[in-house]
Protein backbone atom coordinates (compact mmCIF):
# COMPACT_ATOMS: atom_id res chain seq x y z
CA UNK A 1 0.00 0.00 0.00
CA UNK A 2 2.76 2.38 1.00
CA UNK A 3 4.70 1.59 -2.15
CA UNK A 4 1.61 2.10 -4.24
CA UNK A 5 0.88 5.50 -2.66
CA UNK A 6 4.49 6.53 -3.11
CA UNK A 7 4.37 5.48 -6.77
CA UNK A 8 1.14 7.46 -7.38
CA UNK A 9 2.56 10.47 -5.52
CA UNK A 10 5.79 10.55 -7.46
CA UNK A 11 3.94 9.97 -10.73
CA UNK A 12 1.64 12.90 -10.09
CA UNK A 13 4.40 15.10 -8.74
CA UNK A 14 6.29 14.82 -11.95
CA UNK A 15 9.34 13.64 -10.07
CA UNK A 16 9.23 10.73 -12.45
CA UNK A 17 10.53 12.98 -15.16
CA UNK A 18 13.81 13.45 -13.45
CA UNK A 19 13.72 10.14 -11.60
CA UNK A 20 16.68 8.02 -12.51
CA UNK A 21 15.77 4.58 -13.71
CA UNK A 22 18.81 2.32 -13.72
CA UNK A 23 19.12 0.22 -16.83
CA UNK A 24 20.04 -3.45 -16.80
CA UNK A 25 23.46 -2.86 -18.28
CA UNK A 26 24.18 0.13 -16.07
CA UNK A 27 24.16 2.68 -18.91
CA UNK A 28 22.97 6.32 -18.69
CA UNK A 29 19.71 6.49 -16.66
CA UNK A 30 16.57 7.33 -18.65
CA UNK A 31 13.76 9.69 -17.67
CA UNK A 32 10.09 8.78 -17.43
CA UNK A 33 7.07 10.99 -18.21
CA UNK A 34 3.75 10.86 -16.39
CA UNK A 35 1.02 9.12 -18.35
CA UNK A 36 -0.52 12.23 -19.85
CA UNK A 37 -3.50 10.51 -21.45
CA UNK A 38 -4.40 9.11 -18.05
CA UNK A 39 -4.09 12.51 -16.40
CA UNK A 40 -6.12 14.32 -19.09
CA UNK A 41 -8.75 11.59 -18.84
CA UNK A 42 -8.82 11.98 -15.05
CA UNK A 43 -9.48 15.73 -15.37
CA UNK A 44 -12.36 15.22 -17.81
CA UNK A 45 -13.85 12.32 -15.84
CA UNK A 46 -13.69 14.39 -12.66
CA UNK A 47 -15.53 17.21 -14.46
CA UNK A 48 -18.23 14.80 -15.66
CA UNK A 49 -18.61 13.42 -12.13
CA UNK A 50 -18.85 16.91 -10.67
CA UNK A 51 -21.59 17.83 -13.15
CA UNK A 52 -23.53 14.69 -12.21
CA UNK A 53 -23.05 15.37 -8.49
CA UNK A 54 -24.07 19.04 -8.83
CA UNK A 55 -27.13 18.05 -10.86
CA UNK A 56 -28.11 15.45 -8.27
CA UNK A 57 -27.51 18.06 -5.55
CA UNK A 58 -29.75 20.55 -7.37
CA UNK A 59 -32.53 18.01 -7.85
CA UNK A 60 -32.26 16.48 -4.38
CA UNK A 61 -32.88 19.73 -2.55
CA UNK A 62 -35.07 21.64 -5.01
Amino acid sequence: MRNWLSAVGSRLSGKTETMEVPTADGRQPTAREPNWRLLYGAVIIELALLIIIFYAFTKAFA
Partner: protein
Amino acid sequence: MRTIDWVVLIGTLAVIVAYGTWKGRHKKDLHGYLLAGRELKWPTIALSIMATQASAITFLSTPGQAYTDGMRFVQFYLGLPIAMVILSITAVPIYHRLKIFTAYEYLETRFGVGTRTLTSLLFLIQRGLSTGITLYAPALIVSVILGWNIHVTNVVVGLLVVIYTASGGTKAVSRTQVHQLLIALGGMAVALIIAIHSLPQDVTLVEAFRVAGRMGRLNAIDFRFDPKTQYNFWSGLIGGAFLALSYFGTDQSQVQRYLTGSSITESRLGLLINGMVKVPMQFFILFVGAMVFVFYQFVAPPLFFNTVQRAKVSTSQYASEYEKLEAQHQTQFTEKRADVKRLLTAMRAHDDAATAAATAALRNVQERETATRTAAASLINRTQPGADNSDTNYIFLTFVIDYLPAGVVGLVLAAIFCAAMSATSSGLNSLASTTVVDIFRRLGKPHATDAECVRLSKLATIAWGLFAIAFAEFANRLGSLIEAVNKLGSLFYGTILAIFLLAFYTKRVSGTAAFLGALIGEAAVVWCAVATDLAWLWWNVIGCVVGVAAALIVQRFVPEQDLRVSASSADEVFDPQMSAD
Protein backbone atom coordinates in the same frame (compact mmCIF):
# COMPACT_ATOMS: atom_id res chain seq x y z
CA MET B 1 -13.11 45.53 15.32
CA ARG B 2 -11.50 44.32 18.49
CA THR B 3 -7.79 44.37 19.37
CA ILE B 4 -7.32 40.66 18.66
CA ASP B 5 -8.77 41.18 15.15
CA TRP B 6 -6.28 43.96 14.47
CA VAL B 7 -3.42 41.81 15.75
CA VAL B 8 -4.42 38.91 13.47
CA LEU B 9 -4.95 41.17 10.44
CA ILE B 10 -1.81 43.30 10.74
CA GLY B 11 0.33 40.32 11.81
CA THR B 12 -0.75 38.23 8.81
CA LEU B 13 -0.21 40.99 6.28
CA ALA B 14 3.17 41.98 7.75
CA VAL B 15 4.40 38.37 7.67
CA ILE B 16 3.27 37.96 4.05
CA VAL B 17 5.01 41.15 2.88
CA ALA B 18 8.21 40.30 4.78
CA TYR B 19 8.16 36.72 3.49
CA GLY B 20 7.64 37.86 -0.11
CA THR B 21 10.43 40.41 0.08
CA TRP B 22 12.80 37.86 1.64
CA LYS B 23 11.94 35.09 -0.83
CA GLY B 24 12.51 37.29 -3.84
CA ARG B 25 15.95 38.60 -2.85
CA HIS B 26 19.06 37.85 -4.95
CA LYS B 27 17.20 38.08 -8.27
CA LYS B 28 19.58 40.15 -10.35
CA ASP B 29 18.92 39.00 -13.93
CA LEU B 30 15.73 39.33 -15.98
CA HIS B 31 15.27 35.56 -16.19
CA GLY B 32 15.35 35.27 -12.43
CA TYR B 33 13.24 38.38 -11.85
CA LEU B 34 10.43 37.71 -14.37
CA LEU B 35 10.43 33.89 -14.49
CA ALA B 36 11.72 32.95 -11.03
CA GLY B 37 14.68 31.32 -12.79
CA ARG B 38 12.28 28.68 -14.18
CA GLU B 39 12.74 26.57 -11.10
CA LEU B 40 9.25 26.23 -9.58
CA LYS B 41 7.50 22.88 -9.04
CA TRP B 42 3.89 22.04 -9.77
CA PRO B 43 2.39 22.54 -6.27
CA THR B 44 3.63 26.15 -6.23
CA ILE B 45 2.52 26.68 -9.84
CA ALA B 46 -0.95 25.23 -9.22
CA LEU B 47 -1.58 27.32 -6.11
CA SER B 48 -0.14 30.40 -7.79
CA ILE B 49 -2.47 29.96 -10.79
CA MET B 50 -5.45 29.54 -8.48
CA ALA B 51 -4.47 32.49 -6.30
CA THR B 52 -4.06 34.71 -9.36
CA GLN B 53 -7.64 34.03 -10.41
CA ALA B 54 -9.13 34.07 -6.91
CA SER B 55 -9.03 37.69 -5.85
CA ALA B 56 -10.78 39.31 -2.91
CA ILE B 57 -13.76 39.74 -5.23
CA THR B 58 -14.05 35.94 -5.35
CA PHE B 59 -14.24 35.69 -1.59
CA LEU B 60 -16.51 38.71 -1.03
CA SER B 61 -18.78 38.81 -4.05
CA THR B 62 -19.27 35.09 -4.72
CA PRO B 63 -21.00 34.26 -1.40
CA GLY B 64 -23.24 37.31 -1.99
CA GLN B 65 -23.97 35.98 -5.47
CA ALA B 66 -25.17 32.69 -3.92
CA TYR B 67 -27.25 34.63 -1.39
CA THR B 68 -29.09 36.65 -4.03
CA ASP B 69 -29.03 34.34 -7.05
CA GLY B 70 -28.20 30.85 -5.82
CA MET B 71 -25.28 28.62 -6.75
CA ARG B 72 -25.74 28.65 -10.52
CA PHE B 73 -22.65 30.85 -10.86
CA VAL B 74 -20.59 27.64 -10.42
CA GLN B 75 -21.50 26.76 -14.02
CA PHE B 76 -19.29 29.65 -15.14
CA TYR B 77 -16.28 27.44 -14.27
CA LEU B 78 -17.37 24.24 -16.04
CA GLY B 79 -15.35 24.95 -19.19
CA LEU B 80 -12.17 25.54 -17.18
CA PRO B 81 -10.98 21.91 -16.80
CA ILE B 82 -11.42 21.35 -20.55
CA ALA B 83 -9.36 24.45 -21.25
CA MET B 84 -6.62 23.21 -18.89
CA VAL B 85 -6.31 19.97 -20.86
CA ILE B 86 -6.22 21.77 -24.22
CA LEU B 87 -3.59 24.23 -23.01
CA SER B 88 -1.46 21.45 -21.51
CA ILE B 89 -1.41 19.71 -24.88
CA THR B 90 -0.89 22.78 -27.08
CA ALA B 91 0.32 26.01 -25.47
CA VAL B 92 2.60 24.71 -22.70
CA PRO B 93 5.06 22.82 -24.98
CA ILE B 94 5.23 25.73 -27.43
CA TYR B 95 5.89 28.35 -24.77
CA HIS B 96 8.48 26.19 -23.04
CA ARG B 97 10.29 25.33 -26.24
CA LEU B 98 10.58 28.95 -27.30
CA LYS B 99 11.80 29.97 -23.80
CA ILE B 100 9.81 33.19 -23.96
CA PHE B 101 9.11 35.73 -21.24
CA THR B 102 5.60 36.64 -22.40
CA ALA B 103 2.87 34.93 -24.42
CA TYR B 104 2.94 37.80 -26.91
CA GLU B 105 6.56 37.15 -27.86
CA TYR B 106 5.36 33.94 -29.48
CA LEU B 107 3.01 35.88 -31.75
CA GLU B 108 5.87 37.78 -33.34
CA THR B 109 7.52 34.55 -34.46
CA ARG B 110 4.29 33.74 -36.25
CA PHE B 111 2.61 36.99 -37.31
CA GLY B 112 5.15 39.76 -36.92
CA VAL B 113 5.62 42.66 -34.58
CA GLY B 114 2.29 44.41 -35.36
CA THR B 115 0.13 41.59 -34.03
CA ARG B 116 2.42 41.13 -31.03
CA THR B 117 2.13 44.81 -30.18
CA LEU B 118 -1.67 44.86 -30.68
CA THR B 119 -2.25 41.94 -28.30
CA SER B 120 0.24 43.35 -25.80
CA LEU B 121 -1.63 46.66 -25.79
CA LEU B 122 -5.03 44.95 -25.47
CA PHE B 123 -3.61 43.04 -22.52
CA LEU B 124 -2.13 46.14 -20.89
CA ILE B 125 -5.46 48.00 -21.15
CA GLN B 126 -7.60 45.13 -19.90
CA ARG B 127 -5.26 43.89 -17.15
CA GLY B 128 -4.40 47.42 -16.02
CA LEU B 129 -8.08 48.22 -15.43
CA SER B 130 -8.83 44.81 -13.91
CA THR B 131 -5.97 45.17 -11.44
CA GLY B 132 -7.49 48.48 -10.35
CA ILE B 133 -10.84 46.75 -9.70
CA THR B 134 -9.05 43.93 -7.87
CA LEU B 135 -7.54 46.46 -5.52
CA TYR B 136 -10.66 48.55 -5.20
CA ALA B 137 -13.08 45.74 -4.30
CA PRO B 138 -11.98 44.94 -0.75
CA ALA B 139 -11.21 48.59 0.00
CA LEU B 140 -14.74 49.62 -0.97
CA ILE B 141 -16.48 46.87 0.93
CA VAL B 142 -14.36 47.25 4.06
CA SER B 143 -14.82 51.01 3.99
CA VAL B 144 -18.59 50.62 3.84
CA ILE B 145 -18.94 47.90 6.46
CA LEU B 146 -16.22 49.02 8.90
CA GLY B 147 -16.20 52.70 8.12
CA TRP B 148 -12.54 52.74 7.09
CA ASN B 149 -11.37 55.44 4.74
CA ILE B 150 -11.52 53.92 1.23
CA HIS B 151 -8.66 56.06 -0.11
CA VAL B 152 -6.32 55.14 2.73
CA THR B 153 -7.24 51.43 2.43
CA ASN B 154 -6.62 51.50 -1.33
CA VAL B 155 -3.26 53.17 -0.95
CA VAL B 156 -2.06 51.02 1.99
CA VAL B 157 -2.99 47.68 0.38
CA GLY B 158 -1.68 48.83 -3.02
CA LEU B 159 1.66 49.92 -1.58
CA LEU B 160 2.07 46.71 0.43
CA VAL B 161 1.69 44.73 -2.79
CA VAL B 162 4.06 47.01 -4.69
CA ILE B 163 6.77 46.59 -2.01
CA TYR B 164 7.25 42.84 -2.39
CA THR B 165 6.23 42.57 -6.06
CA ALA B 166 8.70 45.23 -7.18
CA SER B 167 11.53 44.04 -4.95
CA GLY B 168 11.13 40.28 -5.35
CA GLY B 169 9.58 39.84 -8.80
CA THR B 170 7.84 36.66 -9.90
CA LYS B 171 9.39 34.38 -7.31
CA ALA B 172 8.12 36.57 -4.48
CA VAL B 173 4.67 36.67 -6.12
CA SER B 174 4.39 32.91 -6.58
CA ARG B 175 5.77 31.97 -3.16
CA THR B 176 3.53 34.39 -1.27
CA GLN B 177 0.48 33.30 -3.29
CA VAL B 178 0.76 29.78 -1.89
CA HIS B 179 0.34 31.08 1.65
CA GLN B 180 -2.19 33.73 0.67
CA LEU B 181 -4.51 31.19 -0.95
CA LEU B 182 -4.26 28.81 1.99
CA ILE B 183 -5.08 31.64 4.42
CA ALA B 184 -8.01 32.75 2.23
CA LEU B 185 -9.50 29.26 2.00
CA GLY B 186 -8.89 28.70 5.72
CA GLY B 187 -10.78 31.90 6.53
CA MET B 188 -13.72 30.80 4.37
CA ALA B 189 -13.78 27.36 5.98
CA VAL B 190 -13.96 28.91 9.45
CA ALA B 191 -16.76 31.24 8.29
CA LEU B 192 -18.71 28.26 6.90
CA ILE B 193 -18.36 26.26 10.11
CA ILE B 194 -19.56 29.21 12.18
CA ALA B 195 -22.48 29.93 9.79
CA ILE B 196 -23.67 26.34 10.12
CA HIS B 197 -23.03 26.33 13.88
CA SER B 198 -25.08 29.54 14.24
CA LEU B 199 -28.23 27.97 12.83
CA PRO B 200 -30.96 27.18 15.40
CA GLN B 201 -30.10 24.10 17.51
CA ASP B 202 -33.00 22.04 16.17
CA VAL B 203 -32.11 22.60 12.48
CA THR B 204 -29.89 19.86 11.06
CA LEU B 205 -27.46 20.35 8.20
CA VAL B 206 -29.65 18.40 5.77
CA GLU B 207 -32.64 20.53 6.76
CA ALA B 208 -30.58 23.65 6.11
CA PHE B 209 -29.83 22.24 2.64
CA ARG B 210 -33.52 21.61 2.04
CA VAL B 211 -34.50 25.14 3.05
CA ALA B 212 -31.83 26.60 0.76
CA GLY B 213 -32.81 24.24 -2.06
CA ARG B 214 -36.50 25.00 -1.89
CA MET B 215 -35.76 28.70 -1.96
CA GLY B 216 -33.71 28.26 -5.13
CA ARG B 217 -30.27 28.72 -3.60
CA LEU B 218 -28.80 25.28 -4.43
CA ASN B 219 -29.50 25.53 -8.16
CA ALA B 220 -26.01 24.48 -9.20
CA ILE B 221 -26.89 23.06 -12.62
CA ASP B 222 -29.43 24.25 -15.17
CA PHE B 223 -29.43 22.38 -18.50
CA ARG B 224 -31.94 24.72 -20.20
CA PHE B 225 -30.40 26.56 -23.15
CA ASP B 226 -31.08 30.30 -23.23
CA PRO B 227 -28.52 32.65 -24.82
CA LYS B 228 -29.83 35.53 -22.72
CA THR B 229 -29.32 33.73 -19.39
CA GLN B 230 -25.92 34.55 -17.92
CA TYR B 231 -25.29 31.26 -16.16
CA ASN B 232 -26.48 27.92 -17.43
CA PHE B 233 -24.73 24.67 -18.27
CA TRP B 234 -24.19 25.55 -21.95
CA SER B 235 -22.91 29.08 -21.47
CA GLY B 236 -20.61 27.80 -18.71
CA LEU B 237 -19.26 24.84 -20.63
CA ILE B 238 -18.85 26.51 -24.04
CA GLY B 239 -18.49 30.22 -23.23
CA GLY B 240 -16.58 29.36 -20.04
CA ALA B 241 -14.16 27.12 -21.98
CA PHE B 242 -13.43 29.91 -24.47
CA LEU B 243 -12.97 32.40 -21.64
CA ALA B 244 -10.68 30.01 -19.73
CA LEU B 245 -8.69 29.17 -22.88
CA SER B 246 -8.09 32.84 -23.45
CA TYR B 247 -7.48 33.75 -19.83
CA PHE B 248 -5.08 30.91 -19.01
CA GLY B 249 -3.56 30.57 -22.47
CA THR B 250 -3.03 34.17 -23.53
CA ASP B 251 -3.30 36.42 -20.46
CA GLN B 252 0.22 37.10 -19.29
CA SER B 253 -0.89 37.25 -15.63
CA GLN B 254 -1.59 33.50 -15.90
CA VAL B 255 0.92 32.46 -18.57
CA GLN B 256 3.72 33.90 -16.45
CA ARG B 257 2.70 31.58 -13.57
CA TYR B 258 3.32 28.40 -15.53
CA LEU B 259 6.29 29.74 -17.49
CA THR B 260 8.10 29.56 -14.14
CA GLY B 261 7.88 25.74 -14.19
CA SER B 262 11.20 23.92 -14.21
CA SER B 263 9.91 21.69 -17.03
CA ILE B 264 6.91 21.09 -19.27
CA THR B 265 5.79 18.41 -16.82
CA GLU B 266 5.73 20.83 -13.88
CA SER B 267 3.82 23.48 -15.85
CA ARG B 268 1.30 20.96 -17.17
CA LEU B 269 0.72 19.44 -13.75
CA GLY B 270 0.19 22.91 -12.31
CA LEU B 271 -2.51 23.64 -14.91
CA LEU B 272 -4.18 20.24 -14.57
CA ILE B 273 -4.35 20.43 -10.78
CA ASN B 274 -5.98 23.83 -11.21
CA GLY B 275 -8.47 22.17 -13.57
CA MET B 276 -9.30 19.57 -10.96
CA VAL B 277 -9.52 21.83 -7.92
CA LYS B 278 -11.05 25.06 -9.24
CA VAL B 279 -14.65 23.89 -9.75
CA PRO B 280 -15.00 22.27 -6.29
CA MET B 281 -13.35 25.34 -4.76
CA GLN B 282 -15.88 27.70 -6.35
CA PHE B 283 -18.68 25.37 -5.30
CA PHE B 284 -17.38 25.57 -1.73
CA ILE B 285 -17.27 29.39 -1.76
CA LEU B 286 -20.79 29.58 -3.20
CA PHE B 287 -21.93 27.08 -0.62
CA VAL B 288 -20.70 29.42 2.13
CA GLY B 289 -23.06 32.04 0.65
CA ALA B 290 -25.97 29.58 0.54
CA MET B 291 -25.45 28.80 4.23
CA VAL B 292 -25.30 32.51 5.06
CA PHE B 293 -28.64 32.76 3.23
CA VAL B 294 -30.10 29.98 5.43
CA PHE B 295 -28.72 31.74 8.52
CA TYR B 296 -30.63 34.89 7.54
CA GLN B 297 -33.88 32.91 7.34
CA PHE B 298 -33.76 32.70 11.14
CA VAL B 299 -32.08 36.03 11.94
CA ALA B 300 -33.47 39.23 10.42
CA PRO B 301 -31.19 40.61 7.68
CA PRO B 302 -31.04 44.33 6.90
CA LEU B 303 -33.26 45.49 4.03
CA PHE B 304 -30.16 46.73 2.20
CA PHE B 305 -26.66 45.52 3.15
CA ASN B 306 -24.77 48.64 2.04
CA THR B 307 -24.78 50.74 5.23
CA VAL B 308 -23.50 53.91 3.55
CA GLN B 309 -26.33 53.97 0.99
CA ARG B 310 -28.77 53.05 3.75
CA ALA B 311 -27.64 56.02 5.84
CA LYS B 312 -27.91 58.35 2.85
CA VAL B 313 -31.47 57.38 2.01
CA SER B 314 -32.46 57.59 5.68
CA THR B 315 -31.52 61.26 5.78
CA SER B 316 -32.97 62.14 2.38
CA GLN B 317 -36.45 63.27 1.32
CA TYR B 318 -37.27 59.57 0.79
CA ALA B 319 -36.60 58.67 4.44
CA SER B 320 -40.26 57.99 5.31
CA GLU B 321 -40.73 55.87 2.18
CA TYR B 322 -37.63 53.85 3.10
CA GLU B 323 -38.89 53.40 6.67
CA LYS B 324 -42.14 51.99 5.29
CA LEU B 325 -40.17 49.53 3.18
CA GLU B 326 -38.13 48.52 6.23
CA ALA B 327 -41.30 47.86 8.20
CA GLN B 328 -42.71 45.88 5.29
CA HIS B 329 -39.45 43.91 5.07
CA GLN B 330 -39.59 43.14 8.80
CA THR B 331 -43.19 41.86 8.47
CA GLN B 332 -42.18 39.71 5.51
CA PHE B 333 -39.22 38.32 7.46
CA THR B 334 -41.49 37.32 10.37
CA GLU B 335 -43.90 35.69 7.93
CA LYS B 336 -41.04 33.94 6.14
CA ARG B 337 -39.51 32.61 9.36
CA ALA B 338 -42.88 31.14 10.32
CA ASP B 339 -43.15 29.54 6.86
CA VAL B 340 -39.64 28.07 7.16
CA LYS B 341 -40.58 26.55 10.53
CA ARG B 342 -43.81 25.20 8.99
CA LEU B 343 -41.78 23.70 6.13
CA LEU B 344 -39.36 22.03 8.55
CA THR B 345 -42.22 20.60 10.61
CA ALA B 346 -43.93 19.25 7.46
CA MET B 347 -40.69 17.70 6.19
CA ARG B 348 -39.98 16.07 9.55
CA ALA B 349 -43.49 14.57 9.51
CA HIS B 350 -42.97 13.40 5.88
CA ASP B 351 -46.23 15.18 5.04
CA ASP B 352 -45.90 15.84 1.28
CA ALA B 353 -49.03 17.98 0.97
CA ALA B 354 -48.04 20.22 3.88
CA THR B 355 -44.45 20.42 2.56
CA ALA B 356 -45.71 21.53 -0.86
CA ALA B 357 -48.04 24.11 0.72
CA ALA B 358 -45.28 25.49 2.97
CA THR B 359 -42.86 25.63 0.02
CA ALA B 360 -45.40 27.56 -2.08
CA ALA B 361 -46.02 30.00 0.78
CA LEU B 362 -42.31 30.41 1.31
CA ARG B 363 -41.64 31.13 -2.35
CA ASN B 364 -44.48 33.60 -2.37
CA VAL B 365 -43.16 35.58 0.57
CA GLN B 366 -39.63 35.33 -0.89
CA GLU B 367 -40.88 36.95 -4.10
CA ARG B 368 -42.51 39.74 -2.16
CA GLU B 369 -39.35 40.24 -0.12
CA THR B 370 -37.31 40.44 -3.33
CA ALA B 371 -39.75 43.06 -4.64
CA THR B 372 -39.29 45.05 -1.42
CA ARG B 373 -35.50 44.88 -1.79
CA THR B 374 -35.79 46.00 -5.41
CA ALA B 375 -37.98 48.93 -4.34
CA ALA B 376 -35.38 49.88 -1.72
CA ALA B 377 -32.63 49.74 -4.36
CA SER B 378 -34.62 51.98 -6.70
CA LEU B 379 -35.24 54.42 -3.84
CA ILE B 380 -31.48 54.54 -3.26
CA ASN B 381 -31.01 55.21 -6.95
CA ARG B 382 -33.48 58.07 -6.79
CA THR B 383 -31.71 59.51 -3.72
CA GLN B 384 -28.38 59.42 -5.49
CA PRO B 385 -28.67 58.84 -9.23
CA GLY B 386 -25.93 56.53 -10.46
CA ALA B 387 -25.19 55.18 -6.97
CA ASP B 388 -24.30 51.51 -6.51
CA ASN B 389 -27.75 50.00 -5.92
CA SER B 390 -26.52 46.41 -5.72
CA ASP B 391 -25.68 45.13 -2.24
CA THR B 392 -24.41 41.69 -3.34
CA ASN B 393 -20.82 42.55 -2.41
CA TYR B 394 -21.69 43.55 1.16
CA ILE B 395 -23.69 40.52 2.29
CA PHE B 396 -20.88 38.19 3.32
CA LEU B 397 -18.79 40.77 5.16
CA THR B 398 -21.87 42.07 7.02
CA PHE B 399 -22.42 38.53 8.28
CA VAL B 400 -18.74 38.20 9.24
CA ILE B 401 -18.63 41.47 11.17
CA ASP B 402 -21.99 41.02 12.91
CA TYR B 403 -21.88 37.36 13.87
CA LEU B 404 -18.34 35.99 13.87
CA PRO B 405 -16.34 35.93 17.13
CA ALA B 406 -13.30 38.08 17.96
CA GLY B 407 -10.17 36.91 16.21
CA VAL B 408 -12.09 35.16 13.45
CA VAL B 409 -13.18 38.54 12.06
CA GLY B 410 -9.49 39.48 11.82
CA LEU B 411 -8.73 36.14 10.17
CA VAL B 412 -11.46 36.55 7.53
CA LEU B 413 -10.35 40.13 6.84
CA ALA B 414 -6.75 38.90 6.52
CA ALA B 415 -8.00 36.23 4.13
CA ILE B 416 -9.75 38.84 1.99
CA PHE B 417 -6.74 41.15 1.90
CA CYS B 418 -4.41 38.22 1.16
CA ALA B 419 -6.60 37.32 -1.81
CA ALA B 420 -6.59 40.95 -2.98
CA MET B 421 -2.82 41.14 -2.67
CA SER B 422 -2.18 37.85 -4.47
CA ALA B 423 -4.29 38.74 -7.52
CA THR B 424 -2.95 42.30 -7.61
CA SER B 425 0.67 41.14 -7.38
CA SER B 426 0.22 38.78 -10.36
CA GLY B 427 -1.42 41.58 -12.30
CA LEU B 428 1.39 44.07 -11.60
CA ASN B 429 4.06 41.47 -12.25
CA SER B 430 2.62 40.56 -15.65
CA LEU B 431 1.99 44.19 -16.60
CA ALA B 432 5.62 44.98 -15.85
CA SER B 433 6.81 41.97 -17.91
CA THR B 434 4.75 42.96 -20.93
CA THR B 435 5.73 46.62 -20.66
CA VAL B 436 9.43 45.81 -20.53
CA VAL B 437 9.67 42.77 -22.83
CA ASP B 438 7.03 43.54 -25.47
CA ILE B 439 7.11 47.32 -25.54
CA PHE B 440 10.38 48.71 -24.15
CA ARG B 441 12.84 46.03 -25.23
CA ARG B 442 11.09 45.25 -28.52
CA LEU B 443 10.14 48.70 -29.73
CA GLY B 444 12.33 51.04 -27.69
CA LYS B 445 15.76 49.63 -26.84
CA PRO B 446 16.40 46.14 -28.29
CA HIS B 447 19.95 45.96 -26.91
CA ALA B 448 19.11 46.91 -23.34
CA THR B 449 21.17 45.00 -20.78
CA ASP B 450 19.64 42.61 -18.24
CA ALA B 451 20.40 45.02 -15.42
CA GLU B 452 18.60 47.83 -17.26
CA CYS B 453 15.59 45.59 -17.91
CA VAL B 454 15.38 44.45 -14.27
CA ARG B 455 15.59 48.04 -13.10
CA LEU B 456 12.90 49.04 -15.56
CA SER B 457 10.72 46.07 -14.55
CA LYS B 458 10.83 47.29 -10.96
CA LEU B 459 9.92 50.80 -12.07
CA ALA B 460 7.13 49.45 -14.29
CA THR B 461 5.75 47.44 -11.35
CA ILE B 462 5.68 50.61 -9.24
CA ALA B 463 4.12 52.64 -12.08
CA TRP B 464 1.39 50.06 -12.74
CA GLY B 465 0.81 49.83 -8.99
CA LEU B 466 0.22 53.58 -8.86
CA PHE B 467 -2.07 53.34 -11.91
CA ALA B 468 -4.08 50.56 -10.23
CA ILE B 469 -4.39 52.61 -7.05
CA ALA B 470 -5.50 55.66 -9.08
CA PHE B 471 -8.06 53.64 -11.07
CA ALA B 472 -9.32 52.05 -7.84
CA GLU B 473 -10.29 55.53 -6.68
CA PHE B 474 -12.76 55.78 -9.57
CA ALA B 475 -13.93 52.19 -9.98
CA ASN B 476 -17.35 52.52 -8.38
CA ARG B 477 -20.84 51.96 -9.84
CA LEU B 478 -19.90 48.58 -11.26
CA GLY B 479 -22.56 46.39 -9.64
CA SER B 480 -21.42 42.89 -8.72
CA LEU B 481 -17.64 43.18 -8.85
CA ILE B 482 -16.94 39.60 -9.84
CA GLU B 483 -19.18 40.08 -12.84
CA ALA B 484 -17.54 43.42 -13.64
CA VAL B 485 -14.06 41.88 -13.80
CA ASN B 486 -15.16 38.98 -15.98
CA LYS B 487 -17.27 41.19 -18.23
CA LEU B 488 -14.33 43.51 -18.78
CA GLY B 489 -12.11 40.54 -19.62
CA SER B 490 -14.73 39.10 -21.97
CA LEU B 491 -14.60 42.27 -24.06
CA PHE B 492 -11.06 41.34 -25.17
CA TYR B 493 -10.46 37.67 -24.46
CA GLY B 494 -12.29 36.26 -27.51
CA THR B 495 -10.27 38.38 -29.91
CA ILE B 496 -6.94 37.60 -28.26
CA LEU B 497 -7.81 33.91 -28.28
CA ALA B 498 -8.61 34.13 -32.00
CA ILE B 499 -5.09 35.44 -32.69
CA PHE B 500 -3.49 32.65 -30.66
CA LEU B 501 -5.66 29.95 -32.26
CA LEU B 502 -4.67 31.21 -35.71
CA ALA B 503 -1.05 31.07 -34.63
CA PHE B 504 -1.31 27.59 -33.13
CA TYR B 505 -3.42 25.86 -35.75
CA THR B 506 -3.15 27.58 -39.14
CA LYS B 507 -0.17 27.55 -41.43
CA ARG B 508 -1.28 29.88 -44.16
CA VAL B 509 -2.64 32.93 -42.38
CA SER B 510 -0.44 36.00 -42.59
CA GLY B 511 0.16 38.64 -39.94
CA THR B 512 -1.93 41.16 -41.91
CA ALA B 513 -4.92 38.81 -42.07
CA ALA B 514 -4.64 37.92 -38.37
CA PHE B 515 -4.37 41.60 -37.46
CA LEU B 516 -7.45 42.58 -39.52
CA GLY B 517 -9.36 39.51 -38.33
CA ALA B 518 -8.68 40.54 -34.73
CA LEU B 519 -9.96 44.07 -35.37
CA ILE B 520 -13.16 42.70 -36.98
CA GLY B 521 -13.62 40.22 -34.10
CA GLU B 522 -13.22 43.02 -31.57
CA ALA B 523 -15.76 45.17 -33.45
CA ALA B 524 -18.24 42.26 -33.30
CA VAL B 525 -17.75 41.94 -29.54
CA VAL B 526 -18.25 45.67 -29.00
CA TRP B 527 -21.42 45.52 -31.11
CA CYS B 528 -22.74 42.60 -29.02
CA ALA B 529 -21.97 44.47 -25.80
CA VAL B 530 -23.54 47.75 -26.91
CA ALA B 531 -26.42 46.77 -29.20
CA THR B 532 -27.62 43.33 -28.01
CA ASP B 533 -28.61 41.69 -24.74
CA LEU B 534 -26.59 38.56 -25.39
CA ALA B 535 -25.21 37.12 -22.14
CA TRP B 536 -21.59 38.29 -21.75
CA LEU B 537 -20.05 34.81 -21.54
CA TRP B 538 -20.97 34.42 -25.23
CA TRP B 539 -18.89 37.50 -26.16
CA ASN B 540 -15.82 35.25 -25.79
CA VAL B 541 -17.20 32.82 -28.37
CA ILE B 542 -18.25 35.62 -30.75
CA GLY B 543 -14.89 37.41 -30.58
CA CYS B 544 -13.00 34.20 -31.19
CA VAL B 545 -15.18 32.75 -33.96
CA VAL B 546 -15.59 36.06 -35.85
CA GLY B 547 -11.88 36.83 -35.44
CA VAL B 548 -10.78 33.46 -36.84
CA ALA B 549 -13.38 33.49 -39.66
CA ALA B 550 -12.55 37.07 -40.67
CA ALA B 551 -8.81 36.33 -40.75
CA LEU B 552 -9.38 33.28 -42.96
CA ILE B 553 -11.54 35.33 -45.36
CA VAL B 554 -9.12 38.28 -45.43
CA GLN B 555 -6.28 35.84 -46.12
CA ARG B 556 -7.85 34.99 -49.48
CA PHE B 557 -7.09 38.55 -50.60
CA VAL B 558 -3.57 38.77 -49.16
CA PRO B 559 -0.66 38.20 -51.56
CA GLU B 560 1.14 34.88 -51.12
CA GLN B 561 4.51 36.49 -50.31
CA ASP B 562 2.96 38.06 -47.21
CA LEU B 563 2.80 34.69 -45.54
CA ARG B 564 5.12 34.20 -42.67
CA VAL B 565 5.30 30.71 -41.33
CA SER B 566 7.67 30.22 -38.47
CA ALA B 567 9.23 27.24 -36.80
CA SER B 568 6.57 27.35 -34.13
CA SER B 569 3.55 27.03 -36.40
CA ALA B 570 0.96 24.32 -36.66
CA ASP B 571 3.13 21.49 -37.95
CA GLU B 572 5.24 21.49 -34.84
CA VAL B 573 2.48 21.81 -32.27
CA PHE B 574 2.19 18.07 -31.99
CA ASP B 575 5.81 17.32 -32.78
CA PRO B 576 6.77 14.53 -30.35
CA GLN B 577 10.12 16.23 -29.80
CA MET B 578 8.30 19.10 -28.17
CA SER B 579 6.67 17.07 -25.44
CA ALA B 580 10.01 16.72 -23.68
CA ASP B 581 12.34 19.48 -22.57
